[in-house]
């Protein structure tokens, strides 16, 4: 019964171009570390995979109309849970990261209870506030969390290629799950709530329930990404709660394309690549006021890029790619159809 379903699903999906794009991307991600063999590149690729999960989780929440400004709270909760479980109870990190995701989802559910009634900007404020509160609590209970000075986390997999393939595997699973959620009735409800909340309430969508679902699912993936991040960096400190970490997935999703599956992937690839490879040219830049201008110029450029994308490309870089795809593939077919008629 179940195998029949899967076979029919495979038969159906082989007809769509999306499936081929998906397969190409996965095989590309499996092959690329064999081409870029230096350890920095593999670290960067791993970071891309982790941030893909994190940005996708933010994007899922935003597609239900809730723009969180404090997602670092869940990244941190996931990371600290997994790292502390491994440290104190000796639970292997591969289970710990999922427990971290569940704990993070539980906290996200509780925070979501307070957030579902709020409007966009209030919600942003409250989630930002929660990340500050989480930071304060973790530094306050330092005896238990060891957050202020940080500690060395247990290894999840040996660093390098094994960790990269594990991260890609988890990221692929997460994106597949998010894709099916967004295609299901729940995803439809999320988009309806995003477009017009009072109207979707009128049609009979339980908006509070679906917003809570969005919160819980999104925070689960954020916690999972946090666990991976903590075990990847091999240390964890209260710094994981910085607002910069909260804004990172936002920028990735917006630059890539808000509310799409491919947006956060593209965005995280672009941003992590900028963060990791552009510092190489820093030493050729002048020193002003006794500081190296490189990092600041990079952030300035990022800000300008973000504003330009929001103003001129509201659907992100992925919409450009879609346009190109349509231009090269779909238009000719349509033209042929018209000729035949």
């Amino acid at each position, binding site marked *: 019964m179940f195998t029949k379903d899967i076979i029919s699903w495979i038969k159906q999906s082989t007809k769509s171009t999306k499936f081929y794009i998906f397969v190409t991307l996965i095989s590309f991600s499996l092959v690329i570390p064999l081409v870029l063999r230096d350890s920095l590149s593999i670290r960067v690729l791993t970071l891309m995979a982790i941030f893909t999960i994190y940005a996708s989780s933010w994007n899922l929440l*935003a597609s239900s*109309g809730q*723009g969180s*400004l404090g997602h670092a709270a869940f990244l941190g909760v996931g990371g600290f849970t997994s790292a502390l479980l491994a440290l104190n109870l000796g639970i292997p990190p591969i289970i710990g990261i999922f427990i971290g995701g569940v704990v993070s989802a539980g906290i996200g559910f509780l925070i979501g209870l*307070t957030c579902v*009634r*709020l*409007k*966009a*900007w*209030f919600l*942003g*404020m*409250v989630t*930002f*506030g*929660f990340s*500050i*509160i989480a930071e*304060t*609590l973790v*530094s*306050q209970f330092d005896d238990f969390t060891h957050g*202020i000075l940080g500690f060395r986390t247990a290894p999840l997999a040996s660093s390098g290629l094994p960790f990269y393939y594990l991260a890609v595997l988890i990221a692929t699973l997460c994106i597949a799950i998010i894709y099916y959620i967004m295609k299901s009735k729940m995803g439809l409800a999320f988009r309806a709530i995003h477009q017009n909340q*009072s109207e979707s309430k009128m049609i009979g969508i339980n908006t509070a329930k679906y917003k809570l679902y969005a919160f819980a699912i999104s925070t689960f993936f954020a916690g999972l990404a946090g666990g991976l991040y903590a075990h990847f960096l091999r240390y964890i*400190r209260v*710094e994981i709660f*910085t*607002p*910069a*970490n909260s*804004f*990172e997935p*936002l*920028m990735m999703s*917006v630059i890539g394309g*808000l509310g799409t599956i491919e947006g956060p992937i593209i965005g995280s690839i672009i941003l992590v690549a900028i*963060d990791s490879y552009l*510092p190489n040219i820093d030493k050729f830049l002048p020193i*002003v*006021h*006794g*500081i190296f*201008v490189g*990092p*600041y*110029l990079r*952030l*300035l450029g*990022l*800000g*300008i*890029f*973000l*504003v330009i994308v*929001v*103003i001129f490309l*509201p659907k992100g870089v992925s919409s450009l790619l879609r346009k190109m795809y349509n231009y090269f593939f779909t238009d000719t077919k349509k033209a042929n159809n018209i000729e035949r008629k």
Partner: protein
Amino acid sequence: MSLEVNSNFLAPPFLYFFNLRINLLFILVMNIRGKLTEYTVEFLMIDSSTLILTIMWGAAIGCIYVLLATGLNLIFGVMKLVNFAHGELLMIGAYMGFTVITALGVNVYIAVFLSMGLTALIGIAVERLTFRRVLGAEKLNEIFVSLGLILIFDNIAVLLWGDKSKRLISPFENMSIMLGEASIRVDWLIAILFVIVILIALLFLIKKTKLGMAMRATSQKGQTSMLMGINIEHIYIFTFALGAALAGAAGVLYGIIFPFNPYIGALPTIKAFAIIILGGLGSIPGAIIGGLLYGIAEQTAAITLGSIWRDAVAFSVLIIVLVLRPEGLFGKRGE
């Protein structure tokens, strides 16, 4: 009982922006005792002189928050725009004051007005170039543009003026008045006086002039006021410039009281938002009362509970208020 002040850890490269750990209590205690190099602050016991000091200090900080919150409220009321980058205008205002003082050699309190003018010009540019294009579309887009602007302003300020802390030296630097046992800096009192004067001028502008009437009309019903012959584009520009000018004044006053660096903008913005939410969206008296109460409450919390609780307490209050009343303490119920 002693209490460690968090020092800034070395962050990974992409964590440079938003250096939020500016410890106001730390600076306060340093100023009182004149020990600028000590890294631990002693836990203060509450007595009458501390109480007076806390209230005056809270009022001085509160005044800066009031200016910022009033500007934000004005922009929100008229344009229905959420400007998360408003605190960056405060930071730019402080640096404008610094530049004017070093270039022209004027008094700091005259620099307040010059900085207001310059920051208003920057505000006009920001409104025309960015917010105008996303206004009225999706609310999330305004938040994204604001975050982009925060990055832009922070890093331009670092590139132009460096990331070292600066101060604006006022002529009354070392003067203080004794109130009981507490010594209060004259600059705090002058800052409070300035804020009162600016707010009275603002209220006069809004309540008594034709321009203010046009602003009020636009805030009530934009389309109808357009039909009545008000050019709401011009009103938007003027409102944003006014809000920016208030932030510029707040910036120079901030620079007189505290040292400032390019990262000071973020936290005051959030606090100004908290004040607006507490005081009611679009209500200027609410913002004034809310700002003063907030400043005093924050200082009291910092002194009784410890400085790391300062921000968390503020946000806890905000969250509790929003859970009980999602539209704010004095806000109107909508939809």
